[in-house]
């Protein structure tokens, strides 16, 4: 199984990639929106994990939209540190807003390895 992982925090990206690889996943990575778009268009993958704020405040949502446009069946997880950094919380997201946020799951950073592995398993059964 192949996972696309996008994050502008280089060390975090390496760490997540290594963790997923030791669990048997294949991981392709991108550090910015442009690289991510290229991979979305050129590669086949089974699941995507996006950091929310990469180049823009809502990069993760935009990328999620791209993925779903290509194949609505590919699960998308968005991870974000916004809650701790800006006090913004996704718990307040309304049903209506959830409709245009195409992601299947939103997790707040830092995400524990066992947590992300469990969520990946749930989304790909």
């Amino acid at each position, binding site marked *: 199984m192949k996972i696309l992982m996008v994050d*502008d925090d*280089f*060390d975090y990206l*390496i760490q997540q990639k*290594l963790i997923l690889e*030791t669990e048997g996943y294949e991981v392709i990575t991108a*550090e*910015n929106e442009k690289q991510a778009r290229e991979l979305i268009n050129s590669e086949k993958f089974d699941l995507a994990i996006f950091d929310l704020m990469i180049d823009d405040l809502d990069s993760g949502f935009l990328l999620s939209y791209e993925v779903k446009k290509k194949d609505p069946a590919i699960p998308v997880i968005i991870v974000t540190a916004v809650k701790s*950094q800006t006090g913004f919380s996704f718990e307040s997201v309304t049903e209506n807003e959830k409709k245009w946020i195409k992601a299947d799951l939103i997790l707040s950073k*830092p995400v524990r390895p066992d947590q992300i592995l469990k969520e990946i398993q749930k989304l790909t059964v």
Partner: protein
Amino acid sequence: MTYSLEKCKVLIVDDEPQMCRGIRKILDNFRVVVEDTASEVFFEADCAVAKDEFFELIERQDYGIILLDYKMPDVSGLELLEHIVSRNKNTLVIMITAYATFETAVQSTKLGAYDFLAKPFNPDELRNSLKKAVTRFMLSRKAQEFEEEKKKIRFQFISVLSHELKAPLNAIEGYLDIMQNRFDSISRDDFNLMLNRSKIRLDGMRKLIFDLLDLTRIESGEKKRNPELLDLSKIAASSIEMFSEDARKRNIKLSLNAEVPGEIIADRAEIEIIFNNLISNAIKYNKDNGFVRLKIAQHRDKIRIIAADSGIGMSFEEKARLFKEFSRIKNEKTAHILGSGLGLFTLNKIVKFYDGDIKVKSLPGKGTVFAITFAEGVLYDN
């Protein structure tokens, strides 16, 4: 000059209602211009003719000035004075008294009264006293606002700083966790990668701490500053020497053109920080095979340092944030360049201290020019 209109709340405490009314009427169309705070102040007055009314009003709001009758029927003016001062030390109290003895004056001053007005007084005497008080009030309000602003800036700095310190710790902890928990399933190469990244983040953290020390040294100022006659071209040359290895690795050509020796009186360590930051940036944000040209020139009767590079440049919006603390431009080209974002912030502080001026010209993709001009005062004068 434009003046901002400000309000000063006044409380008149006097058991005679005509007195209250009279003062209030004078205040109604009285305005004071305070030049030092660029404000024009008008007054809004409340009256308290009895003790209860006084306590009710003073609980409800803060007054800038209180005109306080020394002799109230149900309470002593001194008692009220004590209460006012303990409640808000910024409130200025003008005691109104018909029996102004030396003793009462001393006593009230001790308790914190600002001024006295002897009964009976004419409108001009009242206005004069108020003018004095309100000027003082506005000045201390301004000083207080300034202090609060400083505190806010300090707080902001510290919260960004703690974020900057936490980031490398998190990264290193992440690597350690993987090495500890997944030791058997990682390759030799990945292991080395994690060690190298951890070292890089540690170095970055150490640099941040040294940069902070530089910054506090500069901000704490005078005491440790050691002005001496310096030759800018010599300091530039040794700074270039220091970075020659970094430049060589990327085949970047470093050159120095000292049109004048550039003698100034300044602290050596601070001038070194200026050159080191300019050159370090010009190399870091350059392209392979590029150049960095340093020039020391006379500009009219001032000395100017110019650092020009053939690097990645920056946009107009990016340029605007350049001298802010921890500000690092984030884009594809800068993604893997390390730095603490304090370099130019510190440089700016130093240049400002020497009454200097910094100009930046930049073209994205082409390069950047920094020009620092020192004020005449720091020129060495034979």
